[in-house]
């Protein structure tokens, strides 16, 4: 096994497993789970997150083995556990490793995500995307991000799809393309890694909003209004973080938002839907098996808007609806207050 043709996937959640299965069509794959009992059950039952495991997949809880045996590793864990995973892996990583992550979340340099309040202010300098976190916590420089309309359930059902691999390095894009491409999966490249990451992360805010629209039966016009105007807010925030607006028009931008905001199978969508039906956010979070990234993302986006003075009424109203018990009707009235402004201001 020392020729290192294997590929590593770190995280055996639904998306991690789906990606492992895609990769296994071309290569041998090590699939990491930090829980030893989970590894044993994956190895025995050949199932993970409700998906059948490809015969080319070897489950493992040995992160050092993955770093030793694989040049290319896909970390796909939730953003709140991301830093810990990279820190565990860091002693085994070298500058010739390639890390392509598939996590749709943000992290703060300083602690305090839980303490964020409605008026909290967060500077762009305090926010990290997952690729920046990898750079900060490890010696790896060849970092990539995988984003696009990739609903795990559909990939698991072997439906056709495409993704974007973004990296500053051609080599990373090429490797992503080589390893992932199959008759049912297309791979596009981008150099704007920050833009692609942010599009994938921030769209979850609108997925929650879209779930609320469905839960309240507000109709498709309202959904389109929410998504379009919310998208403009997201683009303005992303520019502050160094993104290129063009990425928001691509597969990781518009592509992902169309898939996520119209699919009840999206975790973030279902959070919104259940909120609209009167459940409390804590109860929803406790009942979910996997993290809905959009919840923390709204907190950070709201803090960023406060710090940089960016007018984001949709993000603000969603924040209040989720964390401040804002009455839904009041929220809608607030959003529908007429404002005389031009339509497309962000380009």
């Amino acid at each position: 096994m020392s020729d290192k043709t294997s590929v590593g996937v770190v995280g055996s959640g639904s998306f991690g497993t789906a990606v492992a299965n895609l990769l296994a069509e071309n290569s041998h794959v090590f699939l990491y789970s930090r829980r030893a009992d989970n590894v044993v059950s994956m190895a025995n039952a050949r199932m993970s997150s409700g998906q059948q495991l490809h015969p080319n997949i070897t489950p493992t809880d040995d992160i050092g083995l993955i770093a030793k045996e694989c040049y290319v590793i896909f970390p796909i864990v939730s953003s709140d556990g991301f830093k810990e995973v990279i820190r565990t892996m860091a002693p085994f990583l070298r500058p010739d490793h390639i890390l392509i992550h598939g996590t749709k979340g943000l992290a703060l340099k300083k602690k305090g995500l839980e303490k964020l309040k409605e008026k909290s202010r967060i500077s762009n300098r305090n926010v990290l995307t997952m690729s920046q976190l990898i750079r900060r916590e490890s010696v790896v420089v060849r970092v990539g991000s995988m984003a696009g309309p990739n609903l795990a359930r559909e990939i698991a059902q072997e439906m056709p799809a495409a993704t974007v691999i973004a990296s500053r390095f051609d080599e990373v894009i090429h490797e992503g393309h080589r390893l992932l491409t199959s008759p049912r999966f297309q791979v596009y490249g981008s150099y704007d890694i920050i833009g692609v990451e942010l599009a994938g992360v921030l769209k979850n805010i609108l997925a929650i909003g879209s779930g609320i629209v469905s839960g309240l039966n507000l109709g498709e016009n309202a959904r389109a209004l929410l998504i379009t105007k919310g998208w403009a807010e997201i683009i303005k925030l992303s520019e502050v973080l160094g993104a290129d607006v063009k990425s928001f028009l691509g597969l990781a931008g518009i592509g992902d938002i169309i898939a996520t905001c119209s699919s009840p199978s999206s975790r973030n969508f279902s959070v919104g839907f259940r909120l609209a039906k009167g459940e409390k956010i804590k109860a929803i979070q406790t009942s979910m098996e996997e993290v809905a990234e959009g919840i923390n993302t709204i907190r950070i986006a709201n803090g960023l808007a406060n710090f940089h003075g960016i007018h984001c009424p949709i993000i603000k109203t969603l924040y209040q609806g989720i964390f401040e018990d804002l009455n839904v009707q009041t929220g809608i009235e607030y959003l529908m207050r007429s404002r005389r402004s031009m339509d497309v201001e962000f380009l």
Partner: protein
Amino acid sequence: MASDNTNNATQRPYPRIIPDIDNWPIYTLSKDREQLIESVIDETLENILKKNPTEKDIHDELAKAVYLEKIRVERPWKTDAPDEKTFWNGVKNKLVQLESHPDNKIDEEKAILRTIIHRYVHEIVGNFNKGTYNFAERFVPFAFNRLLNASHSRAFTRLFGNKRDLLKSIHLIGEIEQVRELAKDGIIVAVPTHSSNIDSITVGWGISAIGLPAMFYGAGLNLFSVRFLAYFMNRLGAYRVDRRKKNAVYLEALKTYSTQVITKGGHSLFFPGGTRSRSNVVESQLKLGLLGTALEAQRRLILETNGQSFKKVYVVPVTMNYGFVLEAKELIDEHLKNVGKERYFVPSDKSSSSFKILKFMYRFFTADADFTIAFGKCMDIFGNPVDKQGNSLDHNGNMIDIRDYFRSHGQLTNDTQRDSVYTKMLSEAIVVAFKKNNVALPEHVIAFAAFKLFQKKHHTSDLYSVLRMAEEFRELTREELKQAVASIVKELSKLEHKEEIRVDPIVAAEDLDLLIDYAIKKLGVYHQKRPLLKTRKGTIKCQDMKLLLFYHNRLEGYGLEKHV
């Protein structure tokens, strides 16, 4: 080492790391100057042909170079060779003639290309003369010392003792021991910030004062127009960098020369900002061309030995910190004029007379201005910090094998796109280091406080309306200035604690009255109109808002404005 008969002023605080000049890399490389030139010409041609594989590519590259050069020669500089027009007309005519003789065209075009490269390389490559170096090393401190002693009788504040000498007027701080240690076995690439035309002289002096061998250094062509400077620079390892020539052939020749020099072990120095910072803001955008040559040299050094035992290239960020920039007025005027239209900016060859430069230097030293050269922590070519032995370290202090950066799937590979990203990473690391090693001098603190107070009083963040402020409004009470300075000093001390900036001892002392008096006295002391001046009423007045902006800019980007 200075001779025994010169006085204390010229004594070296740090012994030479290589005592005998005959063993300096710059000396041994310059002995084979002709061979070096030939090798640079050959490789430049080879590189250009590799990048332009077809006949059409070569033709287009030549045509572009001729087109750009024909425009350039219309506005000649003093340093330009007298036959520039004739040469380029000749090249153009030959190219036109070739159009009608398709036979053998490719060979003819290659020959033309070689002639152009030959011309460029001879223009770029400098020389090193031991005698001139020895003379300069004795003469420069002696001359400076005379200037300083001449000014001694003037009633300037003496802060560093009565005995004035060069070492006391120019402060050398930072990671000097580390640089000295690593220069013994490794290759140093020093990258200073660029504020003034005298940087080339002062940084050269600084390098010599910390005991390093002379370096190959890239100096702007305009400096060579000063005969007296050119005489020394031509013999002390300076090579010419002409920012006007933007054609691919010239850039390739320049880069090839720098790469070869570094690969052959020559310590090098160039200004990565490319030009003097017009606004006086610490450089945040660097030119990647010459930086890339340091990376390319490291890659070659590793490949040459197949990764076994290789020399390491260390990058040393250096910040030059002046409390008084001689050409401040000209610089800030150019900055304001060119904000938003930098692309169309044509650099001029101002400061082009020996007299002017000498006058500048005289003013600089007699003005008793604060000047500090800060050597930052050495880094490897990827921007990683290195320890005393030169091992590259990661964030957790673990050693990194830098050969891995050039490997793919276990093999050392050549990937120019990858290297270009590494160069960007290095430039990002240098920018961070520049900011950390910038020294907050008293002059900067007071200018920052005053300018921000004017902005606040004027209730505007619009730069131009503050600059146009009527003179009667450009006055501050000492108390309000003191208050603002106090907050800034407090914040600077926090930033220094976090190693985000360096603070001058006078600022750090937190004696606000001393600081204010000292800084007002020194700030732009030789400008015709003073940025800040005490009035008889005891208030503080600004005579020149643009100059105040210029000195204030040195502390931009640290978030200090929130504390005024």
